[in-house]
């Protein structure tokens, strides 16, 4: 199935937005307003919920007219698009969202047609699946690593680069002793949180200039 590439799942949702002429501002504008105030850092709902590499939310107003001789046509609803690239299994992922960020889900999706709320997880999962489009083709540059593994690897890379720079011209016995110590510290350091800014020198390596 094209929704999956290696261990990466590509979820595409199109959720019809309520078209209530009495609503002011309209529901699509309320979604846009909420999203424009939503943080994308480590407090982001997608950072709080597990498993998301990259995700986006888009209010799709309409299809786009490309000009004559193509026909002009329009959608009857606006749609909220969720495009997410995450680790593993769809049911687990949706349950994880409902468990960890219900208030954000409800605040956004309550403007959509037929949204049952996140409290009843079975109904929530079924609703999301009803809005799902099958991805025709999914590309992933790295398709065998989880978010946690990638964050850990980025941390390791920074630490190793620092260790190497600090041990030029240091004799090999000392370098080996420091290396053993370095591994202990690296292993004991929790992986950085998702969507955090990098900390260039967060691991002391006991090298030449310190």
């Amino acid at each position, binding site marked *: 199935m*094209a929704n999956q590439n290696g261990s990466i799942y*590509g979820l*595409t949702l*199109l*959720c*019809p937005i*309520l*078209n*209530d002429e009495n609503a002011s501002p309209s529901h699509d504008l309320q979604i*846009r307003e909420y*999203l424009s105030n939503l943080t*994308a850092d480590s407090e*982001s709902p997608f*950072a709080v919920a597990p498993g998301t*590499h*990259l995700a*986006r*939310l*888009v209010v799709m107003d309409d*299809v*786009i007219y490309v*000009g004559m001789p*193509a*026909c002009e*046509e329009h*959608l*009857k*609803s606006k*749609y909220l698009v969720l*495009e997410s*690239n995450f680790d593993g299994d769809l049911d687990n992922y949706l349950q994880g969202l409902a468990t960890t960020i219900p208030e954000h889900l409800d605040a956004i999706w309550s403007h959509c*047609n*037929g949204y049952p709320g996140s409290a009843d997880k079975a109904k929530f999962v079924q*609703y999301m699946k*009803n*809005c799902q*489009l099958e*991805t*025709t*083709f*999914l*590309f992933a*540059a*790295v398709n065998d690593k989880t978010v946690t593994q*990638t964050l850990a*690897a*980025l941390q*390791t*890379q920074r630490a*190793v*680069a620092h260790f*190497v720079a600090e041990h030029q011209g240091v*004799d*090999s016995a000392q370098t*080996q002793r420091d*290396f053993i110590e370095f591994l202990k510290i690296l292993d004991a350091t929790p992986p950085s949180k*998702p*969507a955090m800014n*990098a900390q*260039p020198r967060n691991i002391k390596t006991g090298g030449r200039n310190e």
Partner: protein
Amino acid sequence: MSNINGKVYAMNAITPMRPWKTWILRLIFFVLAKVKSKQQDLINLSFIEFARWVIIPRNRFPFLGDTQKRESLKYDYLLFFSNFNGTWNQYIDAFSAVLSDGLNLIWRWSEKFPGAVPVTPFKDYIARVQFDTDYYYTAYPEATANDVKSAHIVQQELNKFRVQGTTCTPEQFQRTYLEFLIAVQAHLGSTGEAPMVS
């Protein structure tokens, strides 16, 4: 609205297709998925983290009943979502320069597609069919696809080296440490803030 978060750009595009052409495109994607060598250019281009194409047949827009009206459309639609590193212009320039055959194969079924070469009409078309992202999240805003790949190489080499590196004699260490350095030396780039694009 923001199409950019750190080092990634979120592109959304939607193009209309006559329904009979949709079947040809499905066949092309089917082959692309089965023949991995056909994806090699996409991999070598190395600045796309994730990308997807989604065909929506004209009668398959999600319908939830309730107060929603059913869509009535003449065209099927091709949705394209890309998460790429670098600037919009850089991305389309590169696509046009090295992947034009592949792009033409995918988009020539869309109405009014001008072809991926020359680049200016192609850019005009993309700009016309692109719609903007309201909210964009990435778990690693300070890393590109290249950065992530490099980091995994360093991790893998460290995992290989750690056992021997901690147990061998200092004399052996000198040699194996050099081997480790040679294995990681092209992958030690630092991550951080993305350049300003506009």
